[in-house]
């Protein structure tokens, strides 16, 4: 029973943190809420018998990807002015329509999901099993995923490099 209680607590934390993340004006604040949310989701993973996933969620998602955001936010150096503007943009007139759409979608999903029954598996899926699957039937997926990462790498390299180079050039020109 304890697990269930933990699950609800973790879920609540995840949801609240996500809502906070979505509504913050300051990017760093939002990011921290988002990390909290991810951590809460990691807890859920752990609770439903996916410890490996929970670990990856923390290490890669919260750890690596979010840090990317942090770097970029720092590079862009958004100040107080940005926050003010963000607050202005969060008017009800702006979010009313999307909120209705999201609500409708949510209602639909809830209707769909509420019909499902049955608990999650009693036996946890261990890291070993996942590893075997990854390098068994899914071995090609791993290879292709590497290509995917390569594409991401090359793409961001190409785009980011230009940003940095031009920046430097401008600075040199300024001096």
């Amino acid at each position, binding site marked *: 029973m304890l697990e269930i209680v933990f699950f609800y607590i973790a879920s609540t934390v995840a949801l609240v943190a996500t809502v906070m993340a979505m509504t913050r004006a300051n990017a760093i604040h939002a990011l921290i809420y988002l990390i909290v949310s991810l951590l809460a989701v990691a807890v859920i993973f752990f609770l439903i018998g996916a410890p490996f996933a929970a670990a990856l969620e923390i290490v890669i998602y919260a750890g690596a990807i979010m840090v990317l955001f942090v770097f970029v936010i720092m590079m862009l150096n958004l100040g107080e002015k940005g926050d003010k503007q963000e607050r202005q943009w969060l008017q009800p007139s702006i979010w009313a329509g*999307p909120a209705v*759409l999201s609500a409708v979608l949510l209602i*639909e999903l809830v*209707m*769909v999901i509420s019909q499902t029954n049955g608990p999650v598996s009693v036996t946890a899926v261990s890291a070993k099993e996942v590893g075997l699957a990854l390098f068994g039937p899914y071995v090609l997926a791993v290879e292709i995923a590497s290509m995917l990462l390569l594409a991401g790498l090359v793409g961001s390299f190409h785009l980011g490099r230009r940003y940095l180079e031009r920046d430097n050039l401008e600075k040199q020109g300024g001096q």
Partner: protein
Amino acid sequence: MSETIWLIPLIPLLSSVTLMLFGSRLKVSQIGIIGVASVGIAALLTLWLATEFMQNQQVIQLSLWTWMEVAGFAPGISFYFDGLTLVMMSVITGVGFLIHLFSTEFMEKDPSYARYFAYLNMFVAAMLVLVMADNLLLLYLGWEGVGVCSYLLVGFWYQHNANGHAARKAFIVTRIGDTAMALGLLLLFTQLGTLDIQAMVGEANQTWQVGDTIPLIACLLLVCGAVGKSAQLPLHTWLPDAMAGPTPVSALIHAATMVTAGVYLIARTHGLFLLAPTAMTVVAVIGITTSLMAAFTALMQTDIKRILAYSTISQIGYMFLALGVGAWSAGIFHLMTHAFFKALLFLGSGAIIHCLHHEHNIFKMGGLRTRMPVTFWSFMIGSAALAALPMTSGFFSKDQILLQAYQLPDIGPALWMAGLLGALLTAIYSFRLVFVVFFGKANTEPDKDTGWRMAVPLSVLCFLAMVGGWFMIPVSEVFPASDGSHPAHWVEYVSISVPIVGVLLAYFIFYSGRLKIDGLANSTLGKSLGQFWLSGWGIDWLYDHLFVKPYYGLANMLKGEPVDAIYGLIVALNQTFNHWLSVAQSGRMRWYLASMVAGLILVITLAANLSEGAL
């Protein structure tokens, strides 16, 4: 000869084609010779044919080739020749020849000399085809052919818009009748399976009883055609306007030949009309009504040619009366005599106009008796015949008609009375013309008298107008014999005396001036009545407002193609959708996202909620 009657229409046709193709390269004299000679040869051939026919009374049927043959419909290019045809052919070629001759002088100065003769020859050819046709379709060919020639000749001086208007009016108004007639042809063929006149009449008598509806309808449709071509009520309005053409044309087409085609048609198909007595009554009533209407109108006209035009309408009305009362041969007889004297009158008026610098108003003439003697005598004789003074040709024919009308049961006497009134009026207006133009004081000086090419036709026609009444037309085989009974003698006396009274009245009013009608004419009633008559009973006005203007209005209204508006609407609809959707392509990402979410909702709704009953 009987094998070569096709030459008679062919020669004028060939001449016409020659003149059209090479007219511009020929000399004026050559053109004249070709134009006149072709009709002359046709006339000679007709004469030869006539002599043969008088001897053996042989009906000739000649089939050249089958025009078309479709599903049992096989009209031929084939001719039928009998007494009636002979009369018509004689009139056409004979009078036609004289008028051609007259034209050589009359049109001498015209730059389009060749074109004129080409048209005129073609007209003769078409008219001959009309009367010689052995089936209604070929007749219809001639019928339309003369219509086109009439159109071309009325609008001969095309540079004046009014002439063009008159020509088109002539064609279109007659076309209305023609179309009805075509429908009649359709009906007859559908019912009887042939358009061959003789066979058709025979078949009709087998199929129908007297008084049946279908022959009535068929006859009425044919009458429509006849009414149009012969300028009877209600389709007569084109004829006065058609006087815009050269005067010899008026003489040939609009007096002697084409306008009597309607009479010929009814006479030719009399076998059908006998099956439909109602149709005959209609013909008679149309005839007499037209006759009176036209006579009243003629009384008020001042244009010499318009007077003659209305008089023609009126005289053809008599012919219709004759047909309507079953006096077939009297009708045809009147047709012939009328051709003589009316051609004479028209040619006479042509001579006057020619010599008077194209003056048409009779009140601007006067006193021409001494200066244009030939013309004067032509007019005297012609008018006498027109007024049906005793011993002239018109006297015999008109008398016959009136007497036979009288004998008709029920409405006979009424028709007779009306006919008498018409005769009275005829006498008045014709001698009004004579007195005003030839007597009194001269208002315009003629610059010349007629040359021989005008004088000869006038003289010949004078002769014919005088003695034409003594001719025997060989139509006894064609028409059913009348019963030969005679009405009471007093009827005859009254008939004879009425025209004389008319002439006297004209004399007193327009020459001696003893009878003052100014008061009457100037009274309100008189003025408005006079105006009414002058305008041809306002029928032109009426048609203008009833048909012409609405049609122009309709054409003008539809000009912009309302149907296209439907397609315009479709286009506009597409453009509207395009506009809305383009506006939606605002370039804003959040909006795009929202549309995707909306789409997602839509897809889920459709897929998940409608899924009952799947599999």
